[in-house]
């Protein structure tokens, strides 16, 4: 192809040279002929060289110029559409089948004032919380996230709804609105990401399952190679162990610090401490008195919760696909001080603690087994003038749980769990659960 394109050029060149040849002698003509011959052969050589280069270039097709590469990619944008700015949407569907040897409506934790959504849930088949998650960047400064929980009783609640200020200085990225507190380890994770069907007893007893607040949170990651996070949040403090108090200003405050890192290729960890201070006014609950009768009581005062948490994960060479192991534990302390009202108001103080430890082992792709131990310490409770009616208990509520789950893909999980729960003296609840968790839509990212 190239050869034929260039030949007319050579001929034209020859013609250009030719006019001067009319008057030339035979010798001159011979010289011209040899020159043309040389010209032609040199052209042919160059053409061959060019062809060779072209052939090599075609074979390689290596690294075209950047302009040539990126140009078609720039043009290949999606056509505009009013839906193009829709937020990322995902839905979590879940449900359980529970077989409980004790009536869940009589669930209580001896020595502890309950609150929030606690207990093992309903017997038989029941739909779990369905969650609807919407998230997107709002503009160049803000991002937003909404998580709506649809309860099996056909009520809708806003689980989290917050904005993030992305361009805040020092990498603070403040979160504002309603959110799960950064307290502890498990608190920030949504229930469908938990490794067991239900929350640890310590979470149920001290935080009413999970602590959320309406307020502002800021986290700061130190700009160093080692992970060090400081966080603080203030909120209305209406969630258990606090309560709604109709007042201006800050109702609750929490601070937390986390650190963590890698040990070699195969191990990584995170540990932290957190402190929450909130207040309750007329926080109502039902307590069994010394005679075993239920009594309606109220607490008004300050509640302080401290949490120490750690998690350690192992995967051979960091590859968690085949096998992995995760060990996590949290220790809670709670101190409450204020007024306790039964028939009369009296001074009240309680210092209680509890913890859990759990391990989950992925023994082959898609399959995991796990075990958990929960224990609460009723500690010292001083009922003041009501001490005659409500004696302190020395019973330690505890629970053993084991689970097996199957995760065929990142988007589905089936779980079987058995627990032996002793939250009241002389009562053992044998609990069997079968649970499914399905997630649809946008690919969610899981927190560590």
């Amino acid at each position, binding site marked *: 192809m190239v050869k034929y394109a260039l030949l007319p050029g050579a001929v034209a060149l020859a013609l250009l040279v030719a006019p001067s040849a009319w008057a030339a002698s035979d010798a001159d003509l011979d010289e011209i002929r040899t020159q043309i011959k040389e010209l032609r052969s040199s052209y042919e050589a160059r053409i061959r060289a060019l062809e060779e280069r072209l052939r090599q270039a075609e074979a*390689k097709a290596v*690294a075209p110029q950047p302009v040539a590469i990126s140009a078609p990619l720039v043009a290949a944008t999606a056509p505009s559409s009013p839906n193009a700015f829709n937020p990322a949407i995902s839905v979590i569907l879940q449900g359980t089948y529970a077989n409980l040897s004790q009536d869940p409506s009589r669930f209580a934790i001896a020595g502890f004032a309950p609150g929030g959504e606690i207990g093992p849930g309903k017997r038989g088949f029941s739909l779990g919380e369905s969650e609807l998650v919407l998230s997107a960047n709002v503009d160049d400064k803000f991002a937003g996230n909404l998580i709506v929980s649809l309860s099996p009783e056909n009520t809708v609640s806003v689980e989290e709804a917050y904005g993030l200020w992305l361009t805040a200085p020092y*990498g603070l990225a403040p979160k504002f609105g309603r959110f799960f507190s950064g307290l502890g380890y498990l608190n920030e994770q949504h229930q469908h990401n938990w490794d067991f069907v239900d929350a640890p007893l310590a979470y149920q007893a001290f935080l009413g399952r999970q602590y959320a607040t309406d307020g502002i949170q800021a986290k700061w990651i130190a700009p160093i190679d080692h992970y060090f996070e400081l966080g603080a949040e203030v909120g209305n403090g209406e969630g258990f162990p606090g309560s709604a108090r109709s007042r201006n200003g800050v109702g609750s405050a929490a601070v937390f610090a986390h650190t963590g890192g890698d040990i070699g290729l195969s191990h990584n960890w995170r540990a932290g401490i957190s402190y929450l201070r909130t207040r309750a006014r007329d926080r109502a609950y039902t307590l069994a008195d010394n005679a075993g009768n239920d009594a309606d009581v109220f607490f008004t005062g300050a509640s302080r919760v401290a949490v120490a948490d750690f998690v350690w994960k192992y995967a051979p060479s960091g590859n968690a696909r085949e096998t992995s192991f995760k060990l996590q534990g949290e220790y809670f302390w709670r101190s409450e001080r204020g007024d306790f009202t039964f028939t009369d108001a009296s001074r009240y103080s309680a210092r209680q603690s509890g913890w859990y430890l759990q391990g989950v082992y992925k023994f082959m792709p898609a399959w995991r087994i796990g075990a958990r131990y929960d224990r609460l310490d009723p500690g010292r409770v001083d009922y003041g003038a009501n001490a005659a009616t409500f004696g302190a208990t020395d019973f330690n509520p505890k629970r053993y749980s084991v689970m097996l789950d199957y995760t065929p*893909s990142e988007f589905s999980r089936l779980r079987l769990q058995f627990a032996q729960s002793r939250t009241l003296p002389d009562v053992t609840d044998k609990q069997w659960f079968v649970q499914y968790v399905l997630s649809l839509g946008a690919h969610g990212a899981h927190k560590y």
Partner: protein
Amino acid sequence: MRSHLLIVMVALAAWIAPARADLSVFATVPEWGALVQELGGDKVKVYIATNALQDPHHVEAKPSLIARARSADLVVSTGAELEVGWLPLVVQQSGNPKVRPGAPGHFEAAAFVPLLGKPTRLDRAEGDVHPQGDPHVQTDARNIARVATPLAAKMAALDPSNAAHYQSRLKSFSERWSAAVARWEREAAPLRGVPVVVQHKAFTYLVEWLGLKEVAALEPKPGLEPTTAHLSSVLETLQRTPARMVLRAAYQGDRASQWIAARAKLKAVVLPFTVGGTEGARDLFGLFDDTIQRLLKGAE
């Protein structure tokens, strides 16, 4: 007392803000880390978030990654949803606005490569599908060169004082790379048309580049574990259209490959897949030297 406080403050400031003359780069996978190192030399500080023995689809947003993303000037990722399960969370939790998607410090390699394997049906029932196309672009050596030019330009834009340094290193790298690609293609000529089985559809670009013939995949759907039923059907396929070898990446378990290799009389070949995947794959050049040697050995 006050002077003590001052000393503490200064020490703290020195600890928090270490002297940084270098461009700090967070690379999600080893191949881009190696490329940044080639282009940046001693002017860059590279942190590689994963290693070659890790499945790049299944990485956790662990504390060390958040800490490293916090102080990065540039995040170099593959894109095309390879890191969708963890990178957005790492970047968001790090609170580093410089490297957020869309910010100048966020580079996605897949944007500069013509992507293959774009799914015709976008449905999770098809497994772990990547809507924009197959993200494992680094298995074709020509794609490394395609990414090198815009990456060097990005590094120069973020660190203008060293722009000339990056450009001259790019020039030197491109020359050596072109020569190496030509050599690899010569060496790999006997592989043209060789039928292979892959464990995960991770080698689309390699297969395309060297003209191999992909007969079957051991995973029933991308990202799903091979099942016995599917392996049996692959075995049946192989009886009709025999293959020479079964390929798996260094990070994948060998059970399925060994199973099929024993029954279909194939050679099980482990490819480094990225820098560090095998002893020989020490850098980008070693990655392809070793890949081609292993393929040639498998095709014998």
